[in-house]
């Protein structure tokens, strides 16, 4: 039921970890969005975040790239703008024309465009800020 937390969730990750989503523990505080945007853009702005939490009644939907093994977004990209490397989707911004094919292909609603930028989670290259600032356990790290 309720989100529970302990001090030790404020831990450091390392690049062997992957992120797990536990939306039933999410309180909807949106700290993950804020941490993501300041980490990547140097400002607080949930619309620039690569993770998004949408409240539906008492449920929170967490939309973020899950780095799935078959990564259909990459297959969907006709311009070769996306590539898979060591568990992350890399965006070649010069090649991306924001057509949205990857967005349509993503099964988790984890890709968005804002301000002419394609937003896909890069796990902060191993130590994701969203997890760092999540105190409920809705976002957690586990060894790959």
């Amino acid at each position, binding site marked *: *039921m*309720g*989100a*529970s*937390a*302990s*001090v030790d969730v*404020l831990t450091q990750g390392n690049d062997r970890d992957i992120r797990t989503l536990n939306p039933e523990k999410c*309180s*909807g*505080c*949106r*700290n993950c969005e*804020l*941490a993501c*945007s*300041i980490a990547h*853009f*140097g*400002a*607080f*702005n*949930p*619309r*620039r975040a690569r993770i998004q939490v*949408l*409240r539906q*009644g*008492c*449920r929170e939907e967490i939309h973020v790239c899950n780095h799935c093994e078959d990564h259909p977004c990459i297959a969907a990209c006709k311009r070769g703008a996306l590539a898979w490397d060591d568990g992350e989707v890399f965006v070649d911004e010069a090649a991306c024309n924001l057509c949205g094919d990857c967005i349509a292909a993503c099964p988790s609603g984890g890709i968005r465009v*804002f301000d002419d930028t394609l937003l896909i989670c890069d796990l902060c290259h191993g130590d994701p800020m969203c997890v*760092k*600032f999540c*105190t*409920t356990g809705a976002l957690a790290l586990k060894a790959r």
Partner: protein
Amino acid sequence: MSYMDRLLWVDLGRGGTRKTRIPEEWKSLYLGGRGFTSKVLYDLVDVDTNPLSPENVLTIAAGPLDGTLSPSSGRFTVGCRSPLTGLLGDANSGGHFGPELRFAGYDAVIVQGRAKGPVYLFIDDDHVELRDASHLWGHGVFDTIRLLEEAHGKDVKVIAIGQAGEHLVPYANIMAAGHSAAGRTGVGAVMGSKNLKAIAVRGTGDIPVADDERFLAKVRECHRKLMADPTYQDFSEYGTLILVDIAQASGGLSTRNGQLGLFEHYEKISSHIYQDTYKLASKACFSCILHCKNYARVTSAPYECENMGPEYETMVTLGSRVGVGSLAAILKANQLANDYGLDTISAGTSIAFLMECSQRGLIDEKYEWGDASLVIDCLHKIAHREGIGAFLAKGVRAMSREIAGSEGFALHVKGLELPAFDVRTGKGFALGEAVASRGGDHLRALPNFELLSKTREEGIRWFGTPDCVNPYTESGKVGMVIWHENYGGVCDSAEICKYCTFATYAVMPQDVADLLAFAVGRQYSEADLLAVGERIVNIERMFNLRCGMTPRDDTLPRRFLQEGLPEGPAKGVTVDLAKMLPGYYSGRGWTKDGVPTREKLEELGIEAKGVA
């Protein structure tokens, strides 16, 4: 940095809007939020301004930390002259509206005049527009928000009034997202008097801070301190409903309009029962790790409902205070009050007052304690001012003036109905509510320190006296209350929730000073910051004195001064304000009559207006 540095002025009479920079003095002396709303009120609202006239000014202000990761810093304050008290009115709410307003590029919206017909304000970043709201008028808060989301997208954040605000009920709320309430002193009626149904805002802009790295490190430090605090676990698990249990244990669970401090049906409304029956989830306001909001659903007739809440105040004022021990009925009443946009404290206390008048035979009609369907019926009628609702909608002070012999148990201070906590079981709270600038209000001082079983040593360390930790004694309370009021002024102007600053006592003034320094890029000492709080307390005092309040109004209902509770740990205890008020006035640097001295005003940089 951190300030968006823009005020949005809305003239409903002419239908125009303009944007200005924030005066430097506002930022340095008043910080934001409640500091801004009270400053605007002091500067722009006259003593002869009718609260429901176009001349009243309605300010909605966020704080300089809104929209950032700063803990629990997504709140906003609405200020205006109160139609309920005739004095300073303001109400503070959490939710997600304050941050969205700042993402749109504004620290505050200042609304003047009155529209010819119903309108709503639509803010889409730089684009600002007044739109016809005829199709929204008459709708409750839930429908209004749904219709605005359908029109403008799910991502707009809305504040709105319900039918209560439209009908100018003097304790109508402005609701954020259908469950967070700017819920005291009738700010919703003022919005209704302006024919302003709602404000919908979408903000897509950035909020940079001065020093990312140190700011984030400070946020993490605050999170750690919060999570290590014993109160954190209770609040994050049970929300404020834990206070129902604490109140019953201390003999101060306001029952039958405060005639009793122990509720016979306490077990049915305890936090554990709520947890085990209707609760579905814990929810958070923006950037808050306490997540004290409870989400619940009742599926069985006749009280089917689904909503956030209730919190402690509502559980008591629509529960034990009116004698109702049906949890499902309280949840339903809470949902109705949220949809109508009614202050549950004022509404519940008005109904409780009527019930006691009936009990004592002061009126002919029968209104029985614990009659849940009556309470729900009253809420319908208050919101529409129908039948008995028209009388209840006056509030306790005005009602008691019409019923001889009822004054002693009319639970209000300065016209504002008293919150849930029975101040006989917390003398710091008693002083705080007697002097609060918005009348019978616990949140100006909120001296939880006396309730949390702190040790005598902690009392000495924090406030120089072991007595401050004994809630039943008047001794040792003045300094503690003044500190809480000053720091509370800081929290309300920075728009940080007081539950992370002094229910937990984790985030302290130096922490807020650091958060502000790393966000705004200017240095604040702890003393600077507490002076902002003191300045706000003083300017609000000056506004009230100008409006005709006198220090004789710094009092409590006779019930709390003369009637001891009949049973429980607080049996026989009454409040002796004379033991605290003189010390409070002198501790504040006010005259013995409770008026800020010229020296104090000069020290704080407040220009004396309209008070001799």
